[in-house]
């Protein structure tokens, strides 16, 4: 155990410890303790970054006999550890405000701490098995947090569906891990490059890993759990279902894409592009403020996966990083709005955008933060989202040019999504913050708390500016990528200008269309929002995939289980019982044999002896004195007999 590892373990355990102490401490001070623990954690992780910047720190130990697993702290993982602990800290901070009046606040922070612990574990793990351990714990804590308000209708179902969907994907992941471990003799991510990649298992293992990543990162066809997961508290959505956990799948893909066969990688690219498009399309008609963001997350995750698929793993990681900031910012802004509604207009659904409007007048900081993050997501220059997304799109262009004409579906979908994203985000911003107040009652002025609301929002908004990554917004060469991946090979694609040239007009165009339809002075009614028309209905229900799963798979599954149980009770058990009964019948038969033959035989023997007894009884019993006679007679005979011999 080396020095960096001790620090890593402190970082790892601090959130867990903070959560525990919080649980034992009071509802007032507990959350602050948990937040402080995370603050310490994030400071330490920056320190850790400094320690491991030159030399990755590796720790290996035997967990199961014959199976060595280990941690590896290199630049990428430690950066992400720093990111996760930092964002988690901000979200803890925000949650103090958000969950202030909830009776389960202690439980909440404990679970949040547990989640952070698991997520950090995923990032630090070098061995696939160890990664899987924390991977599952992440899923478990996500289940707990989605189901936090377990009394509300639909929440338990959402939690269950999220866990089971992930579980299905994880089963594939587990198979993949085991195949790699069993066949290559190693499960270390850092050694994957050097293993012998021949044999049928490589493809199977790759599919397994991809399944696991797709489940966690809500890709087609698993993505339906993510919008449902919005049933959890909003800061949870910000942390888990936007910034960290869902990105874990992408992280896994980035780390393991080296062993995947090319065909599989292409499939990943197409699936990613498809997800990006479907997510963006589904976000169009949503009325729930969080659902829009959820589908947008799906869409952005699609970009990242697409990035891995087209070979831009560095850009995917970069997008993961930028996305963590702006999406967390968006969710926290939404959380602030929901909290505002919950506090002041209790009877009104605080998540339905159709009730909102003109919120800029009461929530200026939220509006600012939201705008910055929104523009970053929409992919406008000078914002971080533009840099990373364009990197992916450019690489996809290059990739499709090399791969063949069919591959152009990927960049086409990618670019199309850019326009859609700008449109729905612009629409959301306009509907929520501008225009007229669409409620019956007047808006109430309520100052946003600085430390727990404004500060996290501002930090996240600043983090979404492109300034930190590149002064020149059009150059695809970033310091951070150099830092992660060492010296980067510049893009050899000669048309490096093509991607921004297409995406910027698309983004601007999308915003413009949104502005046309939902400009502040235009009045529009509920009816504009009600899902009518085929496109809106399909968008509203995300292509009806969720319903499809429910109707086909879940119901079929339940029916199968009922049938099998019926089989068990009505067939197997009766057959075994019947076998038992046949033994009973047989034994009845034996009983007859027993009664008619064996018993009679025994009785006959008894009868014989009775006859003998009766005969002998003749000599006895009539008179007492006769006994004496017989005795004397016997004695005489014996004596005579003796005498004869003497």
């Amino acid at each position, binding site marked *: 155990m080396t020095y960096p590892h001790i620090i890593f373990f402190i970082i790892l355990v601090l959130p867990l410890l903070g959560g525990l102490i919080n649980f034992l401490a009071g509802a007032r001070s507990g959350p602050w303790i948990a937040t402080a623990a995370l603050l310490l954690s994030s400071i330490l992780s920056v320190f850790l970054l400094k320690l491991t910047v030159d030399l990755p720190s590796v720790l290996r130990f035997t967990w199961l006999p014959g199976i060595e697993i280990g941690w590896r702290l290199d630049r990428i993982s430690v950066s992400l550890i720093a990111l996760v602990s930092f964002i988690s800290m901000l979200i803890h901070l925000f949650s103090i405000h958000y969950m202030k009046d909830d009776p389960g606040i202690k439980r909440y922070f404990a679970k949040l701490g547990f989640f952070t612990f698991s997520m950090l574990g995923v990032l630090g793990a070098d061995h696939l098995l160890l990664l899987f351990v924390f991977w599952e714990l992440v899923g478990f804590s996500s289940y707990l947090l989605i189901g936090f308000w377990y009394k509300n209708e639909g929440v338990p179902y959402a939690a269950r569906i999220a866990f089971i969907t992930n579980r299905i994907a994880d089963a594939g992941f587990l198979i993949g891990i085991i195949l790699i471990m069993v066949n290559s003799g190693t499960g270390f991510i850092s050694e994957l490059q050097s293993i012998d990649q021949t044999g049928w298992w490589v493809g199977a293992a790759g599919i397994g890993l991809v399944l696991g990543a797709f489940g966690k990162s809500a890709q087609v066809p698993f993505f339906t759990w993510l919008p449902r997961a919005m049933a959890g508290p909003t800061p949870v959505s910000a942390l888990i279902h936007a910034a960290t956990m869902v990105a874990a799948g992408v992280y896994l893909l980035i780390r393991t894409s080296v062993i995947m066969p090319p065909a599989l990688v292409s499939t990943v690219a197409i699936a990613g592009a498809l997800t990006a498009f479907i997510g963006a399309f589904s976000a169009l008609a949503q009325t729930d403020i969080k659902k829009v963001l959820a589908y947008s997350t799906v869409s952005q995750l699609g970009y990242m996966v697409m990035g891995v698929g087209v070979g831009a793993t560095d850009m995917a990681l970069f997008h993961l990083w930028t996305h963590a900031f702006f999406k967390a910012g968006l969710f926290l802004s939404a959380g602030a709005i929901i909290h505002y509604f919950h506090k002041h207009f209790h009877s009104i659904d605080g998540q339905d955008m159709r009730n909102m409007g003109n919120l800029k007048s009461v929530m200026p900081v939220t509006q600012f933060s939201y705008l910055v993050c929104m523009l970053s997501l929409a992919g406008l220059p000078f914002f971080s989202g533009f840099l990373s997304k364009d990197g992916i799109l450019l690489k996809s262009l290059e990739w499709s040019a090399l791969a063949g004409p069919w591959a152009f579906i990927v960049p086409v979908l990618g670019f199309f999504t850019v326009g859609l994203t700008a449109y729905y985000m612009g629409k959301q911003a306009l509907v929520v913050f501008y225009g007229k107040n669409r409620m019956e009652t007047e808006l109430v002025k309520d100052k946003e708390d600085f430390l727990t609301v404004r500060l996290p929002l501002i930090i996240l908004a600043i983090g979404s500016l492109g300034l930190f990554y590149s002064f020149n917004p059009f150059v695809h060469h970033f310091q951070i990528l150099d830092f992660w991946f060492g010296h980067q090979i510049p893009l050899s694609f000669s048309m490096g200008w093509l991607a921004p040239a297409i995406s910027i007009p698309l983004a601007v165009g999308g915003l413009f269309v949104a502005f046309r339809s939902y400009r502040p002075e235009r009045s529009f009614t509920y009816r504009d929002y009600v899902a009518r028309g085929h496109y809106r209905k399909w968008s509203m229900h995300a292509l009806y995939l969720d319903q499809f799963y429910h109707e086909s798979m879940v119901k079929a599954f339940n029916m199968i289980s009922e049938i099998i149980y019926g089989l068990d009770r009505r067939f197997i058990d009766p057959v075994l019982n019947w076998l038992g009964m046949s033994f009973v019948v047989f034994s009845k038969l034996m009983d007859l044999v027993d009664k008619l033959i064996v018993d009679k035989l025994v009785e006959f023997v008894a009868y014989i002896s009775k006859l003998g007894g009766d005969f002998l009884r003749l000599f006895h019993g009539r*008179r007492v*004195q*006769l006994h*004496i*006679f017989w005795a*004397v*007679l016997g004695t*005489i005979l014996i*004596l*005579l007999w003796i*005498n004869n011999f003497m």
Partner: protein
Amino acid sequence: MMLIDIVFYTFFLLAALAAVGILITKNVIHAAFYLVVCLISLAGLYVLFDATYLAVVQLLVYAGGVIVLLAFGIMITNRSDGQLLSSSHLLLPGILAFGGVLVLFTIFTVKFSPGIPVNPDSDQVQQMGIVFMTDYLLAFELIAYLLLVVLVGASYLAKSSQS
């Protein structure tokens, strides 16, 4: 024929006849008195066979004790309605047994008695006293205890029936 022979044959006949009397009488009281006659005759025979001590014991215990007991028993049990129980259907087996035993014993007597030596008499009582207290002490003690137990047991049996 010496006097002693006369005495011997007298006792001999008395004993035998008394036994026959017991057999043929139907009255229990008579039977008891025949028994007394038989016992006294036997005591006389004991004297003639040099067993003076036993003869005395015979007179004391039998003719005295047992017969008195027997008489009491008869008086208590035989009710005065005069029904005398004596006849039996077992005459044939009884005679068979009687004959068989008699024949057998006669055979034995004839077979073994010639070998019996005749012994000059001696002072037996003193000698017997010594033997009782030395060689047969245990048996002697045991028989004493037995008598005690019988005494207690008999009185208990007789008494418990009262209540």
